[in-house]
């Protein structure tokens, strides 16, 4: 088992390298570079300014090695190798713009705001996105388990059928549209019940501690609903299927034959055996939630990781795009690995060699 995990961890290296090469190539080969975006605001003006601007663009491109061949740029991105023109020493870029490379965990700085370190910014953003995703996961599990159990025990009942139909309908609702519809319903357009944008009110800083958290909670309701409804639909369906299968097992019949109450049979014997496969689905949901954050954070204007990625795309912040790609790829890989490991832990019949 340990060997298996180690091997999988080792496989992460070529995988991440492959992904980074593909994305790096994609964003660098595409026409138009960050210099153009950064200096586009100064385009108009007298010839003096124009020449100045050209000079700035040239210097900018030189500093970030944008004028170098692609492979050099990539190797430079990887680590502190001395490949640039004379200004680039071993440990990173020119003197005022050190670059240590991705291999030592340096995600670099933004182009537009050169003093902002992406690593720090990403941590800030993840502090918003990850709790939001976690809350949503917890919510969807807390709802999915009872729904799944109930509908498997009372198969064919009115509640089972309605919940199945409703969840199947929900599963087809596009996330961004769900967000918009929630905003329409709960926002100023109709009921005016909840704030629909951002995480805080404008005057949140003046509020007391309790009021601050209430305000935050109110802002979180709609994004969490939006995050969790699809996974709720998926999970409760899986839960129902799993429970139905478990309930037809021999040991359940045995438990019943022993004279145990139905409650004990369902909640102790059956639930234990069908809940664990559902837990492993967590690993599959995690990366989807990270991807979904781009949409949801854009709809609800939440300053999280997804919003950061979106802005990075628009501004051609190469380093931001690469950072987001690598982080989400890492999360995907770890998610898959975790799910495989939990499967093995749960079911000793599965062996890895």
């Amino acid at each position, binding site marked *: 088992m340990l060997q298996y995990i180690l091997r999988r961890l080792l496989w992460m290296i070529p995988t991440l390298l492959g992904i980074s090469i593909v994305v790096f190539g994609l964003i660098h080969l595409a026409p138009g570079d960050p210099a153009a975006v950064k200096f586009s605001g100064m385009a108009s003006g007298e010839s003096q300014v124009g020449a100045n601007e050209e000079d700035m663009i040239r210097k900018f491109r030189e500093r970030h090695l944008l004028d170098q061949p692609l492979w050099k740029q990539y190797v430079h991105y990887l680590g502190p190798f001395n490949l640039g023109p004379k200004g680039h020493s071993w440990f990173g870029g020119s003197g005022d713009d050190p670059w240590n490379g991705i291999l030592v965990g340096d995600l670099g700085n933004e182009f537009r705001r050169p003093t902002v370190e992406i690593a720090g910014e990403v941590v800030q953003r993840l502090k918003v996105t990850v709790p939001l995703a976690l809350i949503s996961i917890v919510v969807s599990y807390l709802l999915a388990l009872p729904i799944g159990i109930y509908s498997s025990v009372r198969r064919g009942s009115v509640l089972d059928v309605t919940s199945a139909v409703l969840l199947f309908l929900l599963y*087809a609702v596009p996330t*961004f549209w769900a967000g*918009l519809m929630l905003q329409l319903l709960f926002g100023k357009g109709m009921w005016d019940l909840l704030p629909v944008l951002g995480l805080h009110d404008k005057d949140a800083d003046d509020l007391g501690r309790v009021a601050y958290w209430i305000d935050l909670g109110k802002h979180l309701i709609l994004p969490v609903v939006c995050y969790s409804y699809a996974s709720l639909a998926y999970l409760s369906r899986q839960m129902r299927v799993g429970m139905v299968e478990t309930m037809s097992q021999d040991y359940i019949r045995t438990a019943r034959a022993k004279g145990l109450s139905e409650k004990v049979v369902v909640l102790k014997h059956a639930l234990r055996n069908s809940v664990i496969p559902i837990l492993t689905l967590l690993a599959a949901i995690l990366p989807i939630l990270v991807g979904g954050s781009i949409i949801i954070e854009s709809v609800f204007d939440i300053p999280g990781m997804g919003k950061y990625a*979106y802005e990075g795309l628009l501004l051609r912040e190469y380093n931001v795009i690469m950072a987001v790609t690598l982080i989400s790829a890492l999360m995907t890989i770890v998610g898959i690995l975790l799910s495989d490991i939990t499967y093995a832990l749960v079911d000793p019949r599965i062996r890895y060699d």
Partner: protein
Amino acid sequence: MTESQGAENLLADGVPADQEYSKDYWDNVFEQLGKRPLVKMALAVLALLYGSGIYAPLIANDRPYLLEAIDKKEYSDARKGLAGVAGSLSELAAKDEATFRREREALGVETTQTYLEAARSECDGMILRIDAMLKYLPAERHGPLDELAADVEGVFASLEGGDRAAAQSAATGVVERAREIRSTYKAEDVQLESVTSLPVLESTTTTEIFFMVLWAFILGWPVWNRMVNRILLKGDRERIRENRKTKVAAVLGTSLVCAFLWSVLVGGSMTFETSYFKERLTNGDIEAERVVYPPLRMGFAETHMAEAFRPPTWKDYAEINEEGYYVRGPRVPEPDPVTGHIRDAQPVDVRYGEPETNSFLRHPLGTDQMGRDLLVRLFYGARISLAVGLISTVLLVVIGVVIGSIAGYMGGLTDILLSRLIEIVQCFPAFFLIITAVAMIPEKTLHPIYTIIFFIAIVRWTGVARLVRGEFLRLKEQEFAVAARALGLSTWRIIFRHVLPNALGPVLVAAAFSVAAGILTESAISFLGLGIKHPIPSWGSLINESRDYEHWWIQIFPGILIFVTVFCYNLVGEGIRDALDPRMKV
């Protein structure tokens, strides 16, 4: 529900129910699917949705189906221009080639046109104008114009022959004749005849015709398939089975032939020299005798600036008075508190054939920021949204099936390598990669539609590949595969002709779900403002046009269509899964 057709007791496909036959794989699948009314309904809804996209130009268009009219403007422009062009032709005939070249140089005109070519283009100008007039003239008034045309050709012939004197005199004659025609052929003086044209058909492309015919076959499938089975194939199972491919080929062939015939007969012709039919009909340039309009009389890019963001017209607060102000509700203009000035408004521009300003049919689903009709744009948007889902799925299924079957059948090192590839691609953050590609690759290099299709296929084929690989591992040691090998068939033949058809069921299920996923992905990207923008919208980009809660119609209606489509595909996927094997889970 499939039987009981009177005394004969036929199945849905026209075969006697009691007929004994051995079912093959697809017989079973179709039979199972036939038992599911929900799946049938979902398929019907999908067929209608695709149909609404394919037939969008027939449903909603700013061109009429049929127009019997006189383009007065075209006629009188041609008549007035005639003398002028004749004049310049005779001027040209008066010069010799050297003078012509010197003058061109003096003017500083950079041109490679030779003397003769210049003469030809003047002559063509004449002929064009003469033809434009002839189009509307009754036969008895053709005489002088035909002669004029002959004279023009005569001028050119003499110029070509190098006989400049003859050309000059002929050209003088042309000028005189043209002047005469100009004064005697005024539109008021002659009885003009209207010309019949089919503007919608003329503006349709060959591809559109192909899909229109194809879709007619698909929509009519339940009817004609039954008839063909009963009458031509006499309800014989074996023959029906054998002729499945023939039917598909016949349908595709007929559609292709129709498209080809259309491109030969109609392609590129335009009876009226305009693409702004409504404008010219409204301002009287075209005098119409008979106009037949499509049910919705607005183009997908036709703007009504005065009606920007107008709510659906069945809402009472969508009412606009004659000056262009809203009468009721939140959009009634309020005077500025300081100056007392009321924001200017334009009166609504009601063009030819359009419903009245406050008719509830005018904009049943409201308009966008440029006053374009949302309902019309939804019809056209269906084209992009549905096509992206379907084409990307076809691509990813092809990639997945090829890689999966090779890995599964070959085994060994090939399998290991391909499986590693699958594992690596699975780790790609799919949605973000697609978004990145769309944001980075500019429209000029690759249109966002293709970028989206292509990248969806690239990152999402792994699911299909794994499925197919698994099926192959299961199937390749079964008797029929072993027998095929023992017969010495080639590997490719065994893979694609023997094993693959038996592994396609799960692939079909995965395909149905991935069409849904593709549509969702495209709409999300377009919603973020990165994907498809213009000229034809997609459902996602329609929603992106406003996120203001006051413009609720823009957000609600396209979303409903996305939802319905995805829902139907999910239903179909579930249905096929159950039909294949009630216990199978993908």
